[in-house]
């Protein structure tokens, strides 16, 4: 009898080893962080600034946990990186658990990171998960005189309804502003992709090319590393590879000039 009771206790202990989950589709659990972008931007503002802005552009971390761990240690080994951008497709299936796993890994960075909404992150309850965990999908921050305008460009997910990307919001964000020397646009799907609303490609290109202070447009999504000049000779479109393909960009802005370098790991 006693042996059996011990066995039962042992089994109950063994079976209490997992976390209680209500559904893989739940939007959060009791430990899910909130407003990460806002908190990380505040952290970024509290850091000491110098005359160089140095950041990394990483993309598509979806289901590449091992690679992301390696990437984080490589980024940590680079001196003077102010912040990291995670340019969408944090998750593969839009599950809260996936975004938590990635946040656990990116939290090991020595610098704050800022995340942008990707098409996969919209799947199922993903957009609600993203909004609660990271914040609004359209947001901007000004660091050392450079305004980073981050937005949802995943037009296909909205069946190209003409609202994504939000052109009027972009125009307002890219308009001349005191204290801003340069602008950088940041979104997951590049405007030359089939997944971007073709009706909005020209308006988007105009916003960037007509702004002489715009240093470029940063993207991910197309699963390759690319620097293109699709609309003029001065505005680069820099596309980061997926984390699984073990590449990211190191970007520097010195005296209003943007320099980029692919880092393989």
């Amino acid at each position, binding site marked *: 009898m006693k042996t059996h009771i011990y066995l039962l206790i042992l089994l109950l202990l063994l*079976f209490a080893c997992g*976390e*209680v989950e209500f*559904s893989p589709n739940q939007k959060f659990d009791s430990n899910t962080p909130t407003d990460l972008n806002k908190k990380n931007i505040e952290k970024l503002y509290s850091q000491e600034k110098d005359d160089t802005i140095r950041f990394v552009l990483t993309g598509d971390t979806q289901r590449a946990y091992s690679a992301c761990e390696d990437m984080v240690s490589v980024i940590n080994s680079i001196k003077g990186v102010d912040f990291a951008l995670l340019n969408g497709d944090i998750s593969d299936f839009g599950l809260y658990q996936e975004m938590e796993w990635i946040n656990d890994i990116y939290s090991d960075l020595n610098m704050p990171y800022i995340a942008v909404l990707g098409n996969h992150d919209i799947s199922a309850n993903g957009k609600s998960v993203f909004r609660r965990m990271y914040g609004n999908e359209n947001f901007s921050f000004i660091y050392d005189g450079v305004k980073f305008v981050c937005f949802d460009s995943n037009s296909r997910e909205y069946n190209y309804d003409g609202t994504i990307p939000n052109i009027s919001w972009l125009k307002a964000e890219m308009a001349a502003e005191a204290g801003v020397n340069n602008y950088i646009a940041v979104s997951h799907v590049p405007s030359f992709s089939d997944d971007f609303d073709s009706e909005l490609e020209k308006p988007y290109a105009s916003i960037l090319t007509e702004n002489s202070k715009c240093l470029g447009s940063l993207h991910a999504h197309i699963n390759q590393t690319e620097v293109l000049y699709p609309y003029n000779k001065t505005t680069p479109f820099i596309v980061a590879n997926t984390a699984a393909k073990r590449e990211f960009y190191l970007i520097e802005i010195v005296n209003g000039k943007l320099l980029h370098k692919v880092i393989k790991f």
Partner: protein
Amino acid sequence: MESYYIKLLNFKVLTLLLLMAFPILKANSQGARFLIPDGAVTQYGGSIGYGSVGISYDLFKGERGNLDFTFGYVPESKGGPLRILAGKFSYKPLRIKVKDITAIYPVNPGTFVSYTPGEQFEKWSKTQYPKGYYWWSKSTRIHVSLSTEAKFNGEKLLPKTGLKAFSIYSELNTNDLYGVSWFKNRDSMSFLEIVRVGYGVRVYF
């Protein structure tokens, strides 16, 4: 490959198979009596709701299996709102009897399918996405489970309640999407990271 197995095991097909297999499994019963559940089940967590309730059938000779159909709910305050339907099968190969009061089923492997209705979980639109753009189902998850259960004699322990027996169980599970997430990252991720748990009570009338 991934899309193939998801298609093969879609929720409707599985439900149909379970329903078709059901009369055969219950062949010992007479007539339509096999439709009458042997018990009721209620569960906390376990990936099929914050709370879920359902009906339970005994399978095989000597009560060596269970087939449960449950409805679960996740309230907004717990990450919902979500409604979840589940069809659950578990096999109980081992039984340790403790006098005539208790039976422990220590290791019960099983599988279940959960279905979450809702606009955001609808099938990928064929007009919106090229074929194969996304391969998984948003609404239907396939889980594997492992449970442990202690069953108590209701007539002896709770006389006059009319309950033949009641049991408490704890059930570990993971699902197809967690599985593929873990599989490609086995070197950095422990399997326990994709294991979730739920606790339940089953009563037998």
